[in-house]
């Protein structure tokens, strides 16, 4: 058998050394073009999504309104675009970005291609905590919700880790099975909460649980945006640790990494998922499928994978939100249902391919 041709590393990688910052990193040559294409697609979806609705606005006018170039105020474009449509759509992008990066981090740290904040009970822990705060305390400041969600999610993640941890044997399978069981317990507790809640709040909670960005305003966006502003850069800076961790525990130790310490990166993933849950409820499968698709686009190195996952996740969730608004108009499907309907078959395909690949 002939050896595969050795590729020139310069053809695959490019090194980036910003003068002003004390960092340098390598990117796959495909990362920047792919990122630009994703960004363009995301903008396209954003404009289409803003233009679609009961009061349609031509895409060009949307663009003009967003850029502040409208001269004609008679048609209320400003109001519709800035107050009603843009907040939820931008929020969908941010939630998708958070979930995409959360999933990529989780799959990287656990080296488990099927890991997903939704599947491992993390989202359920977050929604249980957030919903109990929402239902049982009056007038909670919105900015506090992510903290509640984060503590619930962290608790759930710790519980799973402790229950699944055993010396020897493959922990990934146990992790998934125990995540499924914990998810069932948390779902039962959620149902309990809902049963005892005020009946007027139940319908609302029901929608929230299915994951929705309906009726969200700029305050929601700022709440999540603040968390992302802190968490995303830290995640990107951790790329190198994740790459090393992906070589396996022994190689990582051999390269001088403190493996157990690096596992703490999972906290970042949990925090991202929890912040997303706090503003939009549980939205499943995004964290699972986004990293798989972006890995195909930009390769497994996390320097490219994480930003690409953020862009692709954001675009996917905006698209899912658009589909949810369009498919049974004038009513709308919560975006979480749309992602489950798209994501579940993809997950099964992954499961199938894993066994045959």
């Amino acid at each position, binding site marked *: 058998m002939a050896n595969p041709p050795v590729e020139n590393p310069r053809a695959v990688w490019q090194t980036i050394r910003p003068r002003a910052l004390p960092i340098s990193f390598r990117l796959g040559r495909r990362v920047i073009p792919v990122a630009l294409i994703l960004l363009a697609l995301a903008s396209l979806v954003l404009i289409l999504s803003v233009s679609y609705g009961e009061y349609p606005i031509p895409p060009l006018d949307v663009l003009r309104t967003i850029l502040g170039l409208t001269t004609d105020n008679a048609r209320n474009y400003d109001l519709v675009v800035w107050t009603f449509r843009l907040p939820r759509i931008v929020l969908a992008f941010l939630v998708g970005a958070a979930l995409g990066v959360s999933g990529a981090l989780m799959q990287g740290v656990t080296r488990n291609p099927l890991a997903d904040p939704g599947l491992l009970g993390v989202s359920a822990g977050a929604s249980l905590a957030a919903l109990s705060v929402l239902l049982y305390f009056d007038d909670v400041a919105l900015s506090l919700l992510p903290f509640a969600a984060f503590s619930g999610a962290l608790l759930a993640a710790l519980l799973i880790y402790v229950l699944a941890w055993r010396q020897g044997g493959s922990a990934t399978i146990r992790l998934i099975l125990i995540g499924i*069981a914990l998810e069932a317990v948390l779902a039962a507790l959620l*149902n309990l909460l809902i049963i*005892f809640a005020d009946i007027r709040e139940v319908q609302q909670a029901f929608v929230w649980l299915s994951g929705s960005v309906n009726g969200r305003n700029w305050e929601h966006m700022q709440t999540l945006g603040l968390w992302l502003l802190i968490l995303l850069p830290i995640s990107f800076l951790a790329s190198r640790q994740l790459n090393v961790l992906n070589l396996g525990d022994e190689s990582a130790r051999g390269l001088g990494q403190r493996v157990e310490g690096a596992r703490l990166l999972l906290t970042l993933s949990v925090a991202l998922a929890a912040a997303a849950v706090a503003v939009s409820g549980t939205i499943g499968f995004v964290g699972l499928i986004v990293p798989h698709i972006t890995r195909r686009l930009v390769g497994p190195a996390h320097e490219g994978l994480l930003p690409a996952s953020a862009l692709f996740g954001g675009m996917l969730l905006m698209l899912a939100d658009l589909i949810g608004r369009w498919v049974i108009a004038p009513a709308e499907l919560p975006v979480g249902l749309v992602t489950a*309907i798209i994501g*579940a078959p993809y997950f099964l395909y992954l499961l199938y391919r894993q066994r045959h690949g």
Partner: protein
Amino acid sequence: MTVHTNRVSATENRLISARGWLLPGLLVCLVALALALLWSITLGAAEITPQVVYEALLHYDAENYDHLIIQTVRLPRVLAGAVVGAALAVAGAIMQGLTRNPLADAGLLGINGGAAFAVVAGVTLLGALPLWGYAVLAFGGAGVASVIVYGIGSMGRGGATPLKLTLAGVIVTAFISSFTTALLLMNEETLEQVRFWTVGALAGREMALFLQTAPFMLVGLAGGLIMSRQITTISLGEDVAKGLGQDTRWIRLVLALLVMLLAGGAVALAGPIGFIGLVVPHLVRLLVGMDYRWIIPYSAVGGALLVTVGDVIARVIIRPQELPVGIVMALVGAPFFIYLARWKVKR
């Protein structure tokens, strides 16, 4: 169907005769079940003594208010709980034997989810249904979902391992139940009418619904008892079963139909209740060993007992309100699942 198991059963019989306490044990469990049922009937907003219950059952007096409560409210609920528990436990036992998967359960393998979706979709699209219509829809949904889950779970090398089946079950359930939720959200009338199909519950079941769904489950239970010897053989593995001259394809088909009857009937009556089929057969196996001729009847009685007691707990702990029994079962069953996943599943 030709089945030659005479030689096996001779050995089995010797094994069983060494455990002479099994039949008396079953009778003790039945007595315990009867007492639990009686206890459950006496509990509620109105104080009713066992004496009155006895009279209401044997000398029903339509003028007596207590008798009326017992016959129209308490009895249907208690009977529904018992038959649903028995059906789900036996369905779980059959599935665990059939798929040799210790984690098999109608809730986990998507069967309950499929049945619930079929019922909700039927009510949404067709409007009000005759009571047996719920059951028929539920069977259809249960059947389709179980075929899909088993098909996906057994793809590829290694066949249907517990992990693959469980994952396939969870994902298919997530997929189907998002359609169920979508239907419920689109139509608020349906939401009111069939809301309990999102959480299993026993409250408010009418005698008529019980009478129209119970026969299916009773047929399933009887079938399970009749087929119990074949289940034992098939639980030893496909090769063993074939080597013993069993026509495994037919047996698998019949057993799958029995599971459909049992789980579908249970969902039609009480909505999706998980974990009963997981917990009960495992506890029963600790007690009676690997012979399904004992596992099936013990599971039936044990499942009925578990749901009856669970329902009593659900009504007592937060009086005067009550919990849906599905929630109690999840809170009891999921930790048990964790125990199994941690210590009993090798791959």
